[in-house]
């Protein structure tokens, strides 16, 4: 009995480790959601697609035998640039048309990348070859692989970088100002169009990094891979409080751990249903999220 209990504790610790790795990826994608929402109040449905694009660019760069420290920045910059192109071509003209048309446009962009990707790259998945030998470190009965460590490390580093960027640089200050009140920011001489594009760039490049990480973690990438993690990341962003940067990280980690606990202790069947149920519960009982403050509706 007690032996079983010890096993269970080890297993739960293992699920936590797996959940943190998964959750880090959600957190990176959720950051982009939350920043874009914070600045233009748009649920960027296509955000998951930048994660997919990042993964494919990463796959291509890794197959060119580039070292990882070059793969990450290049994949991030390219998915960021694609996001900026989409933003300029599609989102910018529709920015003042209201929430629903913007949401529908984002949905259209998302479908375009998913199905366009299927036609261009093919519907079947591609395998991601790890550029290094994956090692497993064992502590007691809990194991951590080097890929999991890289995922958590890269995520932590990128979050620190983002925090520094938003809090301690001029462009970060301009982002915060634009998010707070776009018109006032414009009057203060901030080029808000540029800031919005930059926010898209930043968000999509984080998603791109998450795409490369998940490619390394699961060894597979395909054109539809962005859809479910995109929704999950949105759930994470809402869970933490949409528009709040630490909230996205917290939401991502909580969701990742929760999913792995559902699979480990219950059945995988209801994993996605649990994620959606979390979303609906949080929307009903604390729509501002775990870290958010309630806001009233204005006319």
């Amino acid at each position: 009995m007690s032996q079983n209990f010890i096993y269970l504790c080890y297993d739960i610790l293992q699920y936590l480790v797996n959940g943190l790795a998964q959750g880090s990826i959600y957190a990176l994608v959720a950051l982009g959601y939350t920043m874009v929402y914070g600045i233009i109040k748009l649920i960027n449905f296509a955000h998951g697609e930048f994660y997919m694009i990042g993964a494919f660019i990463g796959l291509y760069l890794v197959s060119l035998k580039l070292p990882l420290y070059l793969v990450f920045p290049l994949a991030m910059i390219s998915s960021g640039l694609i996001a900026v192109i989409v933003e300029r071509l599609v989102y910018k003209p529709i920015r003042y048309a209201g929430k629903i048309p913007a949401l529908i446009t984002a949905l259209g962009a998302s479908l375009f990348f998913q199905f366009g990707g299927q036609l261009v790259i093919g519907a079947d998945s591609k395998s991601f070859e790890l550029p290094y030998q994956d090692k497993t470190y064992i502590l007691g009965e809990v194991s951590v692989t080097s890929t999991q460590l890289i995922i958590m490390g890269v995520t932590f580093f990128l979050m620190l970088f983002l925090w520094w960027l938003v809090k301690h640089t001029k462009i970060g200050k301009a982002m915060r100002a634009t998010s707070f009140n776009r018109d006032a920011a414009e009057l203060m001489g901030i080029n808000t169009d540029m800031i919005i594009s930059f926010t898209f760039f930043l968000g999509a490049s984080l998603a791109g990094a998450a795409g490369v990480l998940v490619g390394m973690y699961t060894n597979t990438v395909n054109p539809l891979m962005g859809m479910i993690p995109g929704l999950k990341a949105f759930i994470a962003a809402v869970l933490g409080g949409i528009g709040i940067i630490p909230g996205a990280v917290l939401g991502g980690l909580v969701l990742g751990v929760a999913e792995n606990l559902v699979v480990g202790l219950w059945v995988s069947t209801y994993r996605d249903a649990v994620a959606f149920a979390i979303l609906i519960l949080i929307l009903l009982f604390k729509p501002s999220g775990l870290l958010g403050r309630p806001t009233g509706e204005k006319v």
Partner: protein
Amino acid sequence: MSLIKMLPKNLFIALTLTICGPSFSQVNDKEILVGTVFPMTGGIATYGQESMNGINLALKKINHEGVKGHIIKLINEDNKSEAIETANAVRKLAHIDKVIAILGSVASSHTLAGAPIAQEAKVPLLTPASTNEEVTKKGDYIARTCFTDGFQGEVMAKFAKENLKKMKAAIIVEASSDYSKGLAKVFRESFTKMGGTVIAEEYSYQSGDTDFRTLLRKLSRSKPEVIFLPGYYEEAGLILNQARSMDITAPFLGTDGWDSPKLQEKAGEKGIVGNYMSSHFSAEDTDTLVSNFVKEYEAAYKQKPGAMAALGYDGIMVIADSLKRAKTLTRSDLQKAIVTTKNYKGITGNITLDKFRNAKKSAVVLETTPHGNEFKFKVSP
């Protein structure tokens, strides 16, 4: 080119509601129309594309000789990996193109949607690859040239017990797939009947999952000696990969859903070693019929044929053979000829249809290695 030429006529066909409207019998009298319905786009497009490769290869051969002085012309429809689209495609083939028979589809859930329509229109529908038991129960016009899930599950249970001499098995199923669930049930029954034990809990994953570490950790607690994993190559490959990297050394047993070169790619060098699967055919089979097919296929498509290609090839060959045996070139005579197919020597084995219109034929057991699947032996029913 043909697109522009076809456009006005087809628009006309589709748009006019006139009773005496366009004539559909403009086809060459020397052509026999056969419809195909395969997933050419969407989730399982690779199966459809491979099947069509096999079919087109066979077609060249058939039309070289001709069938009763006619040639077979295919009308190919894409079901977009969706059940509704399969029904629509079957309806179009049966009523608009007036094909004599329909070949398709791959996934049982798709074929199940098309079968009642074919039955109602009295068009013979032959599926080369849908292994679910339900499919041929839809009526006497529905038949298949592959074995059913029941047979495959039994073969693997027997293999685990008698060849590998394992006593304790675990099962991982894809919860969103009937194929996987059905096989799991058969395996569980036959393995326990033979005296083995199957761990009560069913471990499950969803189609499209990519991270199985938590599931495998849970599974490894029950210390199975062998793991039955009836699923598709995509997830199965990833499971093998992650299991071996977690030091789960028990052999995994798979079924024909594994049969794709992609399995090797997904599982990686380390993950692929020491697992077994059942399938319809092996490219390494020494039978001359098979090796000739493999040679021709490689010449045409620059790759090794998978099971789907072989099944597609045999499917259209059985239709051609039945057309030769049919009294007249009508749907009802063709149906009679198809259901009486006996000992047709196909590359996936000798095909004989039983009274439930299911093919009784051999399965092969393959060992997965990094260089491809190695042929172990053939199991006859």
